[in-house]
């Protein structure tokens, strides 16, 4: 009976999607008080992914978590993950050092429509650690900058100390071909930047709403209100993409934890056209 079950499972899901592979950590970096980035050495043939995809990260003996890939998709020799320490697995990962190993399954999921948006203005709205899954997309757009119109990055976070990739954001802000606006929810009087929710940045940024593709990632409530403001500005509903993260567990649409109606977030998402998930956003039961 077990043999039959094993056989049928293997037929449904290729084994490489179920068995974690060892990746060695080449670098760890503390980003904020609760967020850190690890860089991993992929196998000899490199690691391919598209911006927006995620991996299942395995801490052997502790558990497994889905984490978006936050590095440059064109660099096949480095796999980067930015992680927030919020549960037992990620808190254990926080203690990892260079040379330690992590189990990886992936990459899984859908991607941001960077290629499909060529010729459009791009608005990227990120909240908190939601900047991490969008970063590969930013790298991709910047390395193909001439193919896009205006590119705007709007980033909101809790306090100035919670700003992710601070140095990189400063470099991006210095570019003439990228508009970067940052806001925090609260700050002391020595903060010279914006204070207020990220949605307040949408009408302040300069893009052509009728020719814009928007990519939004952050807490669901932040995405909900950002989408409303993007729509209010005139961005077409079909041009707004969001990244869902609810209850992902297995990464292959097998366990059913992330099922929302007819969709499995880990398999059919995490990146969705907003139009496809707008009903899920207001569904309270799931």
């Amino acid at each position: 009976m077990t043999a039959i079950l094993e056989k049928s499972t293997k037929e449904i899901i290729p084994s490489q999607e179920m068995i974690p592979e060892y990746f060695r950590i080449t670098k760890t970096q503390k980003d904020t008080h609760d967020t850190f980035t690890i860089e991993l050495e992929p196998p000899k043939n490199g690691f391919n992914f598209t911006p927006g995809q995620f991996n299942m990260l395995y801490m052997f003996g502790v558990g497994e978590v889905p984490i978006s890939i936050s590095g440059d998709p064109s660099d096949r020799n480095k796999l980067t993950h930015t992680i927030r320490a919020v549960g037992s697995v990620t808190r254990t990962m926080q203690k990892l050092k260079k040379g330690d190993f992590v189990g990886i399954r992936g990459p899984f999921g859908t991607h941001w429509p960077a290629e499909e948006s060529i010729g459009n203005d791009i608005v990227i709205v990120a909240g908190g650690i939601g900047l991490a899954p969008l970063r590969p997309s930013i790298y991709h757009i910047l390395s193909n900058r001439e193919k896009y119109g205006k590119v705007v990055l709007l980033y909101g976070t809790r306090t100035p100390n919670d700003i992710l990739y601070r140095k990189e954001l400063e470099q991006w802000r210095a570019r003439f071909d990228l508009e970067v606006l940052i806001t925090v929810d609260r700050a002391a009087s020595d903060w010279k930047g914006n204070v207020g929710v990220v949605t307040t940045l949408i009408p302040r940024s300069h893009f052509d709403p009728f020719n814009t593709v928007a990519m939004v990632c952050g807490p669901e409530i932040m995405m909900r209100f950002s989408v409303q403001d993007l729509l209010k500005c005139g961005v077409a509903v079909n041009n707004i993409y969001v990244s869902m993260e609810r209850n992902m567990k297995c990464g292959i649409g097998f366990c059913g934890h992330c099922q929302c109606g007819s969709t499995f977030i880990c398999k059919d998402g995490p990146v969705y056209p907003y139009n496809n998930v707008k009903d899920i956003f207001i569904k309270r039961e799931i």
Partner: protein
Amino acid sequence: METLEPLLSEHPFLKGLDPKHLQLITGCASNVRFDAGQIIFREGEEADQFYIIRNGKVALQIYTPGRGSIIIDTLTEGDILGWSWLIPPYQWRFDAVAGELTRAIALDGKCLRNKCESDHDLGYELLKRFASIVDSRLESTRLRLLDMYDSNP
């Protein structure tokens, strides 16, 4: 004589206003400029003006003993600063400090209040427009109170 009327009529906040009302409002308007760090108003002072920010940045702050001044909002180009002039007891609720060189159109609230009393149509129009600002500031405040970036929601 050149007036601020063309500028005011183009501003989204006043767009579509009856020309006679716009003229009345223009009569209460003047250009102002604040240097970086300059205090525009302080909590508790009489609120007798509001501002349409043309460029620059203004931090709305609240002073908390022991914690100092905390910024609760930042207003920039195109934003409306101040609605306490419209609602009794006409006192500022926060401090406003120019974060950088800021240019704005100041509107005399006392003068406008009198005009609104004698012309209720103008009063209703202004109240509708300010209510929408108050609504968006309230929504923004509520979102921040939710602490949506908290790791343990």
